[in-house]
């Protein structure tokens, strides 16, 4: 099979955080593909293992993580409901959160994709200024630059 004949599956991985841009990405996928047969969507949030240095004690770190996990569970359920409301079959929508050491969020998202064989990754564009991107980097830019064997949609 040539490269041009390569087949792509209909599995879509939407990586979200708490931003409006992420919600827009979910909404975009819902509006574009909701109701169409064969598409499966997973809404993913990678929980970065909290930096040890940020918390004076281990107990404070655990408390933060516990609260954050609850918030993310609610966020993912909200995304799932949004996709169903727009037209996705509930069976075609799943959510996933995973806690991992994450010096680079982009690399963690790509690693999740590698493990799950999704043909398409969808992320929201953060809308960073050039200075912010210079100082702190951009998750979506890095995903676009480093993704292999998949297609990336960056939703504006």
């Amino acid at each position: 099979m040539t490269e041009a004949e390569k087949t792509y599956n209909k599995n879509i991985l939407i990586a979200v955080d708490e931003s409006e841009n992420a919600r827009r990405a979910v909404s975009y996928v819902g509006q574009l593909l909701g109701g169409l047969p064969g598409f499966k969507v997973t809404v993913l949030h990678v929980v970065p293992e909290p930096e040890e240095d940020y918390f004076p004690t281990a107990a404070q770190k655990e408390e933060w993580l516990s609260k954050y996990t609850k918030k993310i569970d609610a966020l993912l359920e909200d995304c799932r409901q949004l996709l169903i409301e727009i037209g996705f079959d509930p069976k075609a929508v799943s959510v996933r959160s995973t806690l991992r050491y994450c010096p680079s969020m982009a690399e963690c998202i790509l690693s999740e994709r590698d493990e799950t064989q999704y043909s398409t990754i969808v992320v929201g564009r953060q809308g960073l200024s050039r200075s912010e991107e210079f100082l702190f980097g951009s998750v979506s830019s890095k995903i676009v630059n480093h993704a292999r064997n998949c297609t990336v949609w960056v939703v504006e």
Partner: protein
Amino acid sequence: MNNTHSQETLKRMVSRWLPPHQVPERFRIHTDTTDFFQVEYDDVVILKDRPYLIRHNAKELRFGLEDDVKFWVKRAVDLEDGSLKIMKLVFYEKFMSHIGDIEFECFRSPKKEARILDLVSGHKNFMQGYSIPDEKGNLIRVLDFIKGKTLAAHVGKMEMDHEAYYHERFPQILDQFLTCVQAIRFLHDNGERHGDIRRDHILIDQETGDYRWIDFDFNYRHRENIYGYDLFGLGNILVFLAGMGDILLQDLKRDGNPLLGTLSEADLNIVFHNRVVNLKKIYPYIPESLNRVLLHFSKGANRFYDHTSQLLDDLRHVDITH
């Protein structure tokens, strides 16, 4: 109070290192430093059975403008061997920092500084020291005192024109700065970041002439590029060194410098929009190879450095004579 360190014992120890008129009659002894405001001049802090006589609080001297007392940072004398130390007590601080129009969350981390001190033990381009917990578990950092001035003060006080500086002093300064960049690469290769890279956080060791990084307790919530802020700091110092100071738009305007008209937005610092980065337009004898590195930190840059190794590779190819 610790039985092995009676008032008499302490007095005897202090007498070995201080002249008689400076030896206090009695000492307040601390084994818990949680309330660092209570730790004052002439007090003794005992850490793991080792006594330290507290001297003055340290001050933050940034760009010669601020003079803030850092109550959690003390000068101290190690009473076992008489060496002068900097003692950093535990101060957890979180705040929003602003750089240009960007806001981000910063915090101090004693754990981070302690970890890096272990990592860089014996490295000539870093301050040296160790960490010891007090009886309440506060992680105190005990640092060797470095005699010398900051890189900012060293370059800022040179009284010569730029061309003479560039040809006579800058080559040696750049060589030394390269060792500092290599030192930061060492941190990054070990998964650590300095966190507060600026020109007054390099001390020039008066004894050895080595450039040495200080103050690693600063940290920030990183986003995608864990080392981006460190790289930005390195770039700012490099531009400062190449320019023998910051080249500010307002100074060029004030001096009626005709070169002001040749500058465009793309020639300015990507974050500090009043600083000129394209120094070749101001000093034409600056070679392309160096100017290209500087331009990575400009508004006109179309590619940023992601890692210190990229900056180092480019700097190694700089020929400052051409």
